């Protein structure tokens, strides 16, 4: 899932300090799971903003809501009735949700309330680790289910490199060498012969090289 972290409170305070009606909009999707932008975080941020405005002697209306997903028009449309009353919205969704809200409510100021970081897993509560870079052409079948694009710091296709030291990456001793992980996994699977033939260059055309990407699924379109 998409992983994000809450933006520093002072950054958000600085952005909304001159408004009097602000909506804090969470997203019940990915950002709820990593506890950065769900209803709970909406309530905490709204409370902090109310305290800030009150102690500053300012009357402000800080409302709270959370949508099922901010990356879908149908859910964003639920705000259409009340959007007019707000001066600004702080969206705690990932970058996709913030942008989609800004696109849908063109004349409204939308601020991001989180920093969107990566596609990752929950290793444990509060510990999220990157696993996928959404390169658009998955090669996990050839690498024992461990992605060298996301987990090798150099995104090497024929690793490990000389910087692999006792299973750790040279850039940081806390980062496991992706290719060491791949080697160990292929060994377990009895597929070490894969290392005997070099991997062909990766087709990066499905990655960011062509600018913003689009998926068209004619079988699904109505």
């Amino acid at each position: 899932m998409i992983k994000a972290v809450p933006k520093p409170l002072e950054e958000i305070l600085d952005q909304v300090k001159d408004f009097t009606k602000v909506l804090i909009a969470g997203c019940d999707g990915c950002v709820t799971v990593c506890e950065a932008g769900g209803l709970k975080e909406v309530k905490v941020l709204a409370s902090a903003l109310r305290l800030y405005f009150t102690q500053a002697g300012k009357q402000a209306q800080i409302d709270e809501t959370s949508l099922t997903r901010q990356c879908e028009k149908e859910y964003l449309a639920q705000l259409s009735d009340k959007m007019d009353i707000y001066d600004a919205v702080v969206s705690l969704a990932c970058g996709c949700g913030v942008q989609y809200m800004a696109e849908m409510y063109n004349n409204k100021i939308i601020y991001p309330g989180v920093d969107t970081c990566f596609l990752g897993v929950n290793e444990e509560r509060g510990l999220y680790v990157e696993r996928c870079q959404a390169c658009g052409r998955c090669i996990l079948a050839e690498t024992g289910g461990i992605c060298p694009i996301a987990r090798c710091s150099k995104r090497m296709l024929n690793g490990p490199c000389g910087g692999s030291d006792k299973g750790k990456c040279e850039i940081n001793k806390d980062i496991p060498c992706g290719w060491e992980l791949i080697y160990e996994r292929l060994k377990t699977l009895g597929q070490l012969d894969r290392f005997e033939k070099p991997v062909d260059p990766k087709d990066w055309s499905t990655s960011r090289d062509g600018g913003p990407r689009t998926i068209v699924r004619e079988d699904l379109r109505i």
Partner: protein
Amino acid sequence: MRLQYPPNVRIIEVPCTGKVDVMHLLMAFEYGADGVIVVGCLEGDCHYSAGNLYAKKRVNRVKEILDKVGVGGERLAMYNLSSGMGGRFAEIVREITEKIMELGPSPIRVATGKATGPIAEVTT
């Protein structure tokens, strides 16, 4: 034990300080508390294993928030006591009440014109 402590303290009982949420603490200040203390069991003695340690992290997070929004993190504190430390509890409540008296009413009560006399909230 007939221990005396200031009467302007409201005690809110919870089963474990692990139940105390960031929102409970923030709401106390929104409602105008001048100060809040969270009193949990001694570290390592939590019946639920780590409830008081979770509370400690939440208290620290709320202190940071209070500092940033201009209320002041010094109005919130956490103490760890056993159920046999009633004397120390009364002493802490006296100390914290004095400290809050020195700090004066919460900026929230000052701003809303409700600053008639300090109230300290205690969560045990």
